[in-house]
């Protein structure tokens, strides 16, 4: 027990010093200790105090793994935290960090473009928009869906982000929207001046635009970007499918007769 507490203390101190490498080492020790106390999964025979402690440890673990950029570790911590959040015994002392963790999870889903899971998770949370941490990914998703990419871009700037962990995702998000914009532009414009493209794609210099254009196989001529024209091939009716349908109908008719 004392061992557990001292480990917990040192973990908190190393996190506050932003020494995440040490923290992750301490975390693995702590998890073994928690396992020995049978507190890694909430159960009725472990006292609520220890469970609250282990919930805190797991939450710290989740945040540390975000700082280390370890997504799969974060997802593991998130999964481990679920029974703690659902547990009746712990409802009396709700976690302060719960919304933050769930918000981070939502943001992670968003960056991976996993919208189905995103909505499934939201469905479980009442009053999503009221909370800073939860409201952030939710509004981001709405803007992404309707196409207000400029708002997303503004939201990922430092001051608008609710906490430093959220900023970790900003880079990824900007990358995502840049590619979204690029694929939209391909369809929407015939050609575009490089300077305008720089502005549209939120890039820093025209050199970056040209680099980006090369990446996506865009043609750059006389300070303009020419997008590759898609060839119209949908007009032709494919005889194969018509034959397939017709044979199918004939078969069914024969069954009936």
């Amino acid at each position: 027990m004392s061992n557990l507490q001292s480990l917990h203390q040192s973990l908190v101190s190393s996190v506050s010093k932003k020494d995440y490498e040490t923290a992750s080492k301490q975390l693995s020790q702590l998890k073994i200790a928690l396992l020995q106390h049978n507190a890694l999964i909430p159960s009725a025979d472990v006292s609520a105090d220890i469970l609250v402690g282990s919930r805190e440890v797991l939450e710290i673990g989740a945040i540390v793994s975000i700082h280390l950029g370890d997504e799969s570790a974060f997802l593991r911590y998130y999964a481990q935290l679920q029974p703690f959040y659902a547990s009746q015994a712990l409802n009396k002392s709700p976690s302060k960090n719960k919304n933050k963790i769930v918000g981070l999870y939502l943001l992670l889903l968003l960056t991976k473009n996993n919208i189905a899971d995103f909505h499934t998770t939201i469905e479980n949370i009442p009053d999503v928009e009221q909370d800073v941490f939860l409201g952030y990914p939710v509004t981001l998703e709405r803007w992404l869906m309707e196409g207000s990419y400029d708002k997303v871009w503004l939201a990922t700037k430092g001051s608008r982000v609710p906490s430093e962990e959220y900023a970790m995702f900003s880079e990824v998000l900007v990358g995502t929207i840049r590619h979204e914009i690029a694929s939209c532009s391909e369809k929407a414009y015939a050609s575009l001046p490089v300077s305008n493209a720089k502005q549209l794609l939120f890039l820093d210099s025209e050199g970056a635009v040209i680099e980006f254009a090369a990446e996506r196989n865009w043609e750059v001529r006389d300070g303009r970007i020419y997008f590759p024209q898609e060839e119209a091939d949908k007009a032709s009716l494919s005889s194969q499918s018509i034959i397939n349908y017709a044979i199918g109908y004939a078969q069914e008719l024969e069954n009936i007769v």
Partner: protein
Amino acid sequence: MVDKRSLRSSKRTDDNNKNNDSSSSNNKPSSKPTRSSSRRTASGASKKTPVTENTEKTTEADKQPEPPVEDTQMVGVQEPKKDLSGDVEMGDDTIDKKEDGTTEEKKEDPAVTTYNEIKQNFTLLERAVALFDSRYTLRVLRSIASHRRKVTAEIISKVVQDYYPAGHEAADYLLQQIGQTQSTMDVDESSQDVLPEVDVYLHLLVQIFLLDQKQYEQGAEFSSQLVEKVHSLNRRTLDALASKVYFYYARFFELLPAPAITNIRAQLLASLRTATLRKDVDLQATLITLLLRNYIATSDITQADHLVNKTKFPESAANNLIARYNYYLGKIKAIQLDYSGAHEQLVSAIRKAPQTPAAAGFLQAANKLNIIVELLMGDIPDRATFREPRLSKALHAYFLLVKAVRVGELEAFHTLLEQHADTFKRDGTYTLVLRLRQNVIKTGIRMMSLTYSRISLRDICIRLGLESEESAEYIVAKAIRDGVIEATLDHEKGYMQSKEILDIYATQEPMEAFHSRISFCMSLHNDSVKAMRFPMNQHRLELKNAQEARERERELAKEIQEGEMDDDDGGDFDAL
């Protein structure tokens, strides 16, 4: 079997005569003396009378073609009944009875009617067990709906005391549950064995009685014990009854305060496992729908999805259960953004749902969800849906929503959302409605693209109520990529240029649309063929007939050859 029945009917005659003696002065003297005697002999006469029976029952009976012999028997079972006034009368009855307690003989007619009907159901259950035919059980279950309104503690206690041998522990238990004590009345049939089906049926009656009395705590406890009991029995003839038991079991826990609902999951899952192993289709289907309902009630969509993926819903389940299952699937898919899948499920749920007034609630819920899903898919729901009398009131908020989305006005959409937020939250569609915002924008853009051949981004921005031109540009670009509109953007001059509209009949679209309709008709036809029912062993009879006919033919041919054909054989030939 036959002995028991005759024993029963003779007993009933006694009962009726007793009642008749005491209450012949009441308003229904003429029908009684004939009734008990006519049950066996002249069932045709009583067949005309139960026209006033609960409509649900008669329609159900119409749907299922029964062999004629059984049909008359079944209808004969129903007492000639008066109209709705019977209910009112019963109210007076119970008060009377409470006053003079033990004098059971002095009963008014509706109570006796119900009593007799319940007793008659025992016979049906016994027959179901003997003939191994679940149709009799289903008939009993259907009658529950009509009994439910009339059953009182007294009726149950009388039935219970009649059926169980004296001092049977189940009888004491049941009586205790409904707050009745064992009366000193003589029990005629104490020698009879207790059939598990009838036993469970009586328990089920008590369960429903408790539900109607709103004694949820007690009912939940009672149901838990009953479920355990049913779980331990392994009889195929019990399946239909068991699924009802589980249904009410889950209902009780749903009505209890919050944590209760999650506590029954383990039991339901365990029962589902057993039911699957026993190939108990009824129970399997019931349990899957109950579990889904349970998960969705607490918004555990992921778990619900896992359940759907890991289980196979029995195809031969009852239609109502399939409809319910489709609805839940539709809900799950809608939340997971699989709108076309959700739409498919919801449409078949609406089509399969019973069209009786009792199912109006289900239809409303399914239609609400369907409307949202259609909107999310970019379709506009059929206006006729909102005109249906059963739906129009419940769907009012959704009607306004459709109007706002159809016009593509963001402003109107937002005010509507604020006004009706409570309605949507209550229906559990709020999160889905929130997703409609982008559809409103898209429709708005589409309208503009169709109307103008060229429009400046500034105008788009103003018309859609957006905050900046940049936003408008990105949104339009996205709409172009998503195929909502056919247009190009000019960034330097800041306008949107619409392309000429493609002739849809030059593409594959019409054929695809026709194909989906044809395949629907095909599968409908195939399902109808599969759903046909034939009497058991009928084909053997036919084979035998065919065999005989062939032999006769052979004989005939022989006789013709011998040139000795006479008139009798000719008659036989006609019969072929």
